[in-house]
């Protein structure tokens, strides 16, 4: 499989290969020990060149990795937007505090994702859309706010794992305990969506091999799982009559 992002990799490798050969020739007088690449358990070991050693270290990244990061930024932006609503509309202080934490966490992860994309010279926004207006589709647009939308809002999220425009509109319209319930249910759905995005990416060939993205995925999974757990327990504590089983991600 070929990493989708090329960087003109092939030609560069040739140049580097020559440079490395030069280095080896220089250091051959110092009798640098050979480089071994062991085989599978029980199989023979072979010797490789320094250029081959470097080649084995190079992970690169795939278009899927880039798409995932761009998508996840939009996804996280919706969570931040939901928490912004919580400030005015929520009622329970514990839910508000939890929301603050979630927003902080999501914002921090957005910075990591933006920096990952920027340092690989990839656009932060997905092709054909920008993150800010995209998040706006989720429910902050004023027609939905005022209930003056000419057409019924879509029940289909713009991306899997996010709340649909209609769901966001219901959140905007709600307040008090009803808002808390919709917020917790919505955020659980939202977080489950992130977990599913991680699963989908990991199932792709060659995806998530960059150690930084791989560690990032681990921390996303750990954080979202623990937040889902807390939200579920909060949901059952605060609203014993409400339906507490997590909604399945809409996709």
């Amino acid at each position: 499989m070929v990493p989708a992002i090329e960087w003109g990799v092939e030609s560069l490798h040739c140049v580097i290969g020559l440079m490395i050969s030069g280095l080896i020739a220089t250091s051959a007088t110092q009798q640098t020990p050979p480089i071994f690449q062991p085989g599978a358990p029980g199989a023979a070991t072979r010797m490789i060149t320094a250029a081959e050693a470097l080649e084995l270290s190079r992970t690169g990244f795939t278009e899927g990795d880039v798409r995932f990061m761009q998508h996840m930024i939009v996804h996280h932006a919706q969570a931040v937007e939901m928490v912004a609503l919580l400030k005015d509309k929520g009622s329970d202080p514990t839910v508000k505090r939890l929301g603050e934490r979630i927003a902080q966490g999501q914002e921090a992860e957005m910075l990591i994702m933006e920096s990952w994309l920027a340092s690989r010279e990839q656009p932060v926004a997905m092709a054909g859309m920008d993150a800010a207006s995209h998040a706006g589709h989720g429910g902050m647009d004023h027609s939905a706010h005022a209930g003056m939308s000419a057409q019924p809002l879509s029940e289909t999220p713009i991306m899997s794992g996010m709340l649909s425009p209609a769901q966001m509109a219901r959140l905007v319209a709600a307040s008090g305990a009803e808002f808390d319930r919709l917020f917790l249910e919505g955020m659980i759905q939202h977080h489950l969506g992130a977990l599913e995005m991680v699963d989908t990416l990991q199932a792709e060939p060659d995806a998530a091999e960059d150690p930084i993205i791989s560690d990032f995925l681990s921390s996303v999974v750990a954080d979202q799982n623990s937040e889902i757990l807390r939200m579920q327990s909060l949901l059952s504590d605060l609203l014993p009559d409400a339906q507490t089983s997590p909604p399945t991600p809409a996709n």
Partner: protein
Amino acid sequence: MIVRTLLLSSVAAMSVMLGAASASAQTQILVPDARSTLSAGLHDAGQAASNLTLEYSVAPPPGFFDPEALFAPTPRSDDDEDAPRPPQPEVKPKFTPLALANSDMAMSDGRLFVGNFNGFNAYDVTQGEPKLVMSVVCPGGQGDLSVHGDLLFMSVEQNRGRLDCGVAGAEGDVNAERFRGIRIFDISDLNNPRQIAAVQTCRGSHTHTQVPDSTDPKVLYLYNSATSGVRKTDELGICSEGEPDANPETALYSIDVIKVPLDRPQDAAIVNRPRIFADAATGRVAGLWQGGRIGVAAQNTAQTNHCHDITVYPERGLAAGACSGNGILLDISDPQNPTRISELFDPDMAYWHSATFDNAGDKIVFTDEWGGGTQARCRAEDPANWGANLIATIENRQLRGKSFYKLPAPQTAAENCVAHNGTLIPVPGRDLMVQAWYQGGMSIVDFTDPSKPFEVASFDRGPIEADRMVVGGYWSAYWFNGRIYGSEIARGVDVLRLAPSDLLSAAEIAAAESAIHDEINPQTQTEYKFADTPDVAGAYADQIARATGHDAALTARVQAEIAKWRAGTVDRRASQSLATALTTAADKATGADANRLKALAGIFGRLSAA
């Protein structure tokens, strides 16, 4: 290293304390010094050394350095700075900067083993300057390694890891050729290292720790600490994920205990996955910290569903687990069945990362890898007790947090910096630890008084680049038989030697340099024992002389006797009377000084009877 969620909190001026469970000493004040403003460069960065001498600096060997993974060469221009120039594209690494990162180290039989995300290197250090004797390439990261006789163990955690040390075709979420776990190499022949076993685990292996069997020398256990995601059941049948309430069999919330029969290491296998985080009263598997902040100004502490690293002290039957959201103490008298006896939580700890016992086994230095190691966390504006060491004591087998210690000099935003791996420096009478702080350099801390840690020596380089964070710095800084070895992520291996100062005397250094262990795996601690020598006696004497209000006349007598001893003559009667005087003084003294006087009395007592 773990890339974790960062919380952009303002300084925690008011931590929410948890009473006795919390380290509650005064917050350290970080003061800029020469380390704070060093010039940048990969090979020519400015250096600042305090009470340490850099003896050797060995660049990565061929095949273990990739300029394209750090940065591409910056086009230079001699143009006037003010002259208008077309905007230059920012130069970026083309491959992950961690692709060839040097990681953890071990020492065996005069050889230094340096782990790497792409394999490992072995150096002969018997002649001082490290001489490369073997390079092995086997991708999978992070390359945390340990050595036992002819066997080398290596942790593999990445999805790209393959059974055959290659990378071809390691795709899909289920792949029979994938390897995540612990590899075992036979290194008896440096001209033909061979992989002889590969123990697959559910979350791979981030770090591992050797634990000898208490009775059977032919059995070695490995405690495997794994931090990444759980593999699919279809790939490895023993694995499934989820929270334990929903899935009691979940691979989260445990460590792996691997049994290695040393006469048939190819039969190594997991023999236990103990639930060491379970609630002591209810048995609930997820019994420790569930993640998040305990208060508005507190750290966002990770959920305790794994250990990042475990350090064992077999002679004490104890293990210290640095387990994401908690520090824990384990009874390992039955190594196959470790059981938790105490745990610690602290609102200022984000991610409990590693642990080091003192020589007596009654203190533990825990580190907090806030930000995961790839972030600048030692800037002047960062809280002084975040990303620091938490120094704890063990009293009646219970952990108590006493104080924090952070690298005392702020670093720039271009330097990834946070508390990382270290070992004890065996100075009799004191608890000293040398420790890596990534691009913060290395720092030696005295934690003899667990409430008042202070710095004794340091070494640092400037950032790799001045204006841009390029991940680098010391992964580990370890004392191995008289020298400090630093594994620099990007720059190779450094060897440093202690230099005498008011804070550490020549005799104390000589005593430390005389304590030799043939095999050192830092996460498997063995007790340092000191012979009766003039240097060891001199070390205690120098320490006593530093105490305010010490008996100057007695100290002078001690130094005089040590001088005679050095010269080859022992006055038995004078030694006997000195031993008596020192015992009397010890009875009046307290704390570490009483112990030093007692130890010195013991030495002179034995000398008089010899």
